[in-house]
């Protein structure tokens, strides 16, 4: 069985009498250490799918299997555990905790993993150094540039050593130079064995990925594998 298995997954929104199918009948398998990009027009359902993969949202129909266990049907507590241990989520708008240093931000998920203070600090520092922010870890988010903030978010997503890294338009708020840096970092992580799934609508960014899945109106339109650029 694949690392990720989606079986007939659908997601509908009910908006005052009307039902909107954000996703319909998605069937997908994603293997360990794949590097996947979801592409597609705005409103095609990319974020909706990512949220389901990240256990932030649950499908209205179908089944989501992660690493051999059925996610749809898990209790709130089990879902929190999956979010904490199995998934690292990166957002377009960084979503760092305000008024808290970069280091504390990276330490936060380890609190929920019940890692002690000393070990937590050590691991967070090591992770920040890996993403090249060793010097700035005591700065607060509002004292960091966009690219630096996204690095903090990446460090935070990776610090629990999750099986999947999910990134919803990670370069969406960054200039092309900084985007390139982030993609280089992702490439390195992928080479180190990390499974990465990201959303983008920039074709040059998608070109970094081995596999591109195009969504259209909540459907999988194309699913193509090609040699990385």
């Amino acid at each position, binding site marked *: 069985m694949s690392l990720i298995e989606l079986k007939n997954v659908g997601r509908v929104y009910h908006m005052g009498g009307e039902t909107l199918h954000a996703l319909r009948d998605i069937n997908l398998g994603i293997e360990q250490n794949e590097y996947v990009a979801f592409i597609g027009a705005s409103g095609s359902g990319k974020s909706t799918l990512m949220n389901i993969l990240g256990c*932030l949202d649950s499908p209205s129909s179908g089944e989501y299997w992660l690493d051999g266990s059925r996610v749809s049907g898990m209790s709130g*507590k089990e879902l929190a*555990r999956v*979010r*904490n*241990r199995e998934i690292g989520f990166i957002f377009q708008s960084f979503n760092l905790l*305000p008024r808290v240093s970069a280091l504390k931000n990276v330490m936060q*998920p380890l609190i*929920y993993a*019940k890692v002690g203070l000393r070990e937590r600090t050590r691991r967070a520092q090591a992770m920040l150094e890996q993403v090249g922010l060793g010097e700035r870890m005591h700065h607060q988010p509002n004292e960091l540039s966009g690219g630096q903030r996204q690095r903090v978010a990446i460090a935070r997503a990776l610090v629990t050593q999750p099986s999947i890294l999910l990134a919803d338009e990670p370069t969406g708020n960054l200039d092309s130079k900084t985007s390139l840096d982030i993609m280089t970092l992702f490439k390195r992580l992928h080479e180190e064995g990390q499974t990465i799934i990201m959303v983008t609508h920039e074709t040059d960014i998608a070109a970094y990925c081995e596999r591109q899945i195009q969504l259209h109106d909540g459907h999988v339109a194309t699913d193509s594998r090609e040699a990385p650029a």
Partner: protein
Amino acid sequence: MIFLILESFRSALHSIRANALRSFLTSLGIIIGVASIITVVSLVQGLQASIDQQFESLGSNSLIIQPDFNQQEYEGRDVYLSEDDLLAIRKRVVGLDSVTPQVFLSAAQGLTYRGNRSSVDVRGVEPDLFVLDDTFADRGRELIAADLIGRSRVMVIGDKVRRDLKLPNDPVGEFVQFGLDWFKIVGLLEIKGNFLGQDLDNVAYIPFTTANSITPTHANPFMIFLAKADPDELDWVRQQIRQVLRKEHKIQPGKPDDFKIESSEQIQQSIAQVTGIITVVFGGIVGISLLVGGIGIMNIMLVSVTERTREIGICKALGATRADIMLQFLIEAVVLCLLGGLIGLAAGFGLGKVIANMIPNFTPAVVPLWAVFLALGFSTGVGVLFGLLPAAKAARLDPIESLRYE
């Protein structure tokens, strides 16, 4: 669980420090509530301590015997203690160190000196009283046995009476008029100050025998006895006095006494009861104000949950469970209340000291440990009670929706 509480504690302190001013204003209700509890308790306790101290000088081995006016018009006659009662007690009670009478006289014109007037009750006493009461003359002398034997027209007064009568600083040798009789001042007592709102210097003493000689035989002025005995034998002595007085007053078996025998300890206990009630009543009022303070905290916490919706969403995305979020906000509320309680404690302690210093003759305020724990315990309780609703609200938030919250 301990791990979680510790972490929540850490993050609560961080978040309180990050919003120092708001946190302070939020817990102001608690601060004021606790400060007033501590102030009131410390003052009442200080009062209690000073009362206890005064009773200390009276000793736990004395009895006060007085007519029981609740039994007024007892069996068709007045209720009073007489000299015969005194003689009977002296003759028949075993184990008594001393018993001394005090008869209260008043005259229509009061006590006068060159047109100045004092409405003090003149008391007929025996010299023993000065020992029993721990009262000594500052100028002149106290009453002595010779005064008693000679039925002398002499008087010992307190400083308040001296001031009221505009007597000279050393009044010894002056003559004052009481009713139809003239008395020579032979002593001025040392100043004792106030006790339970009573001016202990507003006293005038004459020999007991003199008092009897100037009151008409048919009148029965108000008389009490003060008795002293070994503390171990006090109960036994009390029983005997009761038997003697019942016999003297010809009280039938089964009928109630027409007199009261109280030990100073009993009086002290009933005063302690009063201060206890004051403490409880004030405590109740302040408790209500703490609840109001708690509602203030709940309000701000609810606002803060809304304000931090996005943060809560982030934490949930990072793997926080409902319990994690719940605990974080609950502990934040508790820490807020507890810090408020501590500040209030310090403020109340200081305020109690300041007020105690402004009252003359007041023992410095004492804050008992139970009041400290009660105040802190109550603040914690308020924190838990009023933190629950906001914490539950935070825990219930949906991760996706809170992440979308602007």
